């Protein structure tokens, strides 16, 4: 196991270099002047442009620029935006909000999705089963921005149950955005658990557990669930990685000050340093999450060995 982790961590280095280089190159290769519109209605003065070109090393060849960026990065310096804001600081304030939103969404997704999936998987063809199938199909077919706006309109503006925008990102305030963010994956989790449960329901080991005289509660809750949830939990793991990548749409609708909004605004304002910084962090987070999921898989299923 130790060697496996080490190998995986080492594999991350080339992946990290490749992705960050790609992002860096793409961000600065976007057509158009990066300093257009930075000085209001008129063109920026030549002195400003040359100062900026100097600050971001734009006169160096691309590889040298990237090398300098990387060198600062490993020292913990994410650089500054063109307006002088510290990129690292902005990420440090936005990321905890996204993490909180991601955890809320994950919790909602897991609890509702798994419960619905298990209940419907245990009784094939019945009212509950049809209800779960239809409602998940419904959720899967609706784009998140529709769900988001409808929820905001109905619960926030018409019924007044929630505040339509998140002013302070506490866990409580993030429940509704979390629900919107989780809605699509929740439907997938429900369907995945349903399929997994109904497949395991007729498994030989379930029959053995019954023949041992174990209570049905235990046969379902321990034997069947433990086996059925292996694929579901790995799905949830990768999903958490995706949530941590920021929810541009959901954060936008509810005005959550997280990473998604930050990267979206930075792309609009062609703020290359910010985009590169945020995406670099996201790449790292995603790489670590996939490693964690793979390790978790081995813990859940003893048949999987990494040596």
């Amino acid at each position: 196991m130790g060697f496996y982790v080490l190998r995986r961590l080492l594999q991350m280095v080339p992946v990290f270099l490749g992705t960050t280089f790609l992002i860096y190159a793409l961000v600065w290769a976007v057509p158009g002047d990066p300093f257009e519109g930075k000085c209001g209605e008129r063109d920026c003065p030549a002195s400003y442009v040359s100062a900026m070109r100097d600050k971001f090393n734009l006169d160096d060849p691309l590889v040298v620029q990237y090398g300098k960026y990387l060198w600062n990065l490993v020292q913990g310096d994410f650089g500054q935006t063109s307006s002088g804001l510290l990129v690292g600081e902005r990420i440090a304030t936005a990321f905890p909000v996204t993490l909180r939103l991601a955890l809320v969404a994950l919790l909602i997704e897991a609890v509702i999705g798994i419960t619905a999936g298990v209940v419907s998987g245990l009784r094939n063809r019945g009212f509950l089963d049809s209800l779960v199938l239809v409602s998940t199909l419904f959720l899967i077919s609706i784009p998140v921005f529709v769900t988001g706006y409808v929820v905001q309109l109905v619960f926030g503006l018409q019924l007044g149950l929630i505040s339509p925008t998140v002013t302070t990102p506490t866990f409580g305030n993030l429940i509704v955005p979390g629900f919107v963010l989780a809605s699509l994956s929740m439907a997938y989790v429900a369907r995945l658990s349903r399929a997994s449960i109904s497949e395991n329901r007729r498994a030989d080991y379930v029959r053995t557990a019954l023949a041992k005289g174990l209570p049905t509660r235990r046969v379902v809750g321990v034997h069947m669930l433990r086996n059925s949830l292996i694929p579901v939990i790995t799905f949830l793991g990768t999903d958490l990685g995706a949530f941590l990548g920021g929810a541009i749409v959901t954060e936008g609708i509810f005005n959550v000050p997280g990473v998604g909004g930050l990267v979206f605004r930075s792309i609009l304002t062609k703020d290359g340093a910010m985009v590169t910084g945020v995406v670099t962090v996201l790449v790292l987070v995603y790489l670590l999450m996939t490693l964690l999921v793979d390790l978790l898989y081995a813990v859940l299923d003893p048949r999987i060995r990494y040596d």
Partner: protein
Amino acid sequence: MTALLEVEDLHVEFRTRDGVARVLNGVGYHVDAGETLAVLGESGSGKSVTAQTVMGILDTPPAYVMRGAVRFHGEDLLSATAERRREVRGEGIAMIFQDALSALNPVFTVGFQIEEQLRLRRGMSRSEARKRAVELLDLVRIPHARQRVREYPHQFSGGMRQRAMIAMSLALDPEVLIADEPTTALDVTVQAQIMDLLAEIQRERHMGLVLITHDLGVVAEVADRIVVMYAGRIVEQADAVSLFRSPGHPYTEALMKSLPRLDAKGTTLDTIKGLPPSLLRIPPGCPFHPRCPRAEAVCSVDVPPQERLGFGRTSACHFAEEVLNG
């Protein structure tokens, strides 16, 4: 005297999309303490379904028990409460299955799967249950039981897995053990070891053993009595010695003729012509008549009753006496 376990006139049907399959059509047998009853038959003859009905682990739907009784110490289990049936499982009647790899839960250790019954049903602590599990693995002669108790089923070889399953079934000291083709998935040398082990345990514990198999060789070695099943019916019941000396039903006769024999080397092996009937459309009269070399007009009309052929011996054939006398 009431038998330890008695199955009487059991009728089970499977309601499928293609129609109703009559899987059991009046099966009855009994087994006493210290006795080995072999249930012999082709696949689809209803051997396993009978066992699952006894255990109460049939999947309903599609399976429905239409008629009959399963009595354990004289108590009818089919009319007992679900809670009472659960009590009997494992403790009164235990069961082992054919393919131990899929029958054991892949994500729990062998020890866990033995111990959970002890903890739940006997109220043992973790350490007591672990100690008992090691003893049980020792009993079925798994080497290094102390280490192996912590391993998962996939880390065991086929024979060792079946031993572990036997150990698991013995955890609550059952009075009857139903072994559903316990050696079918194993290779021949291991088969013999497992059969010896089962026979030994059965003797020592004075258990009733119901051995479900399609292997005549296995039956000959360990069975005290044999019931032969065909298309959800019992066609012949006899003690092992007399059944092998002179079969009382054409089907049993044909099964024995299809065994390779050392003294008939070089000759063509007899086979039973045709296929077992579809349980959706069992032929009228005797279900075996389309394949039977002795069939006459009456066989396709009347269902043969169980003819008594001496002490404890029956045969469901219109010509049972003639078959018996060769």
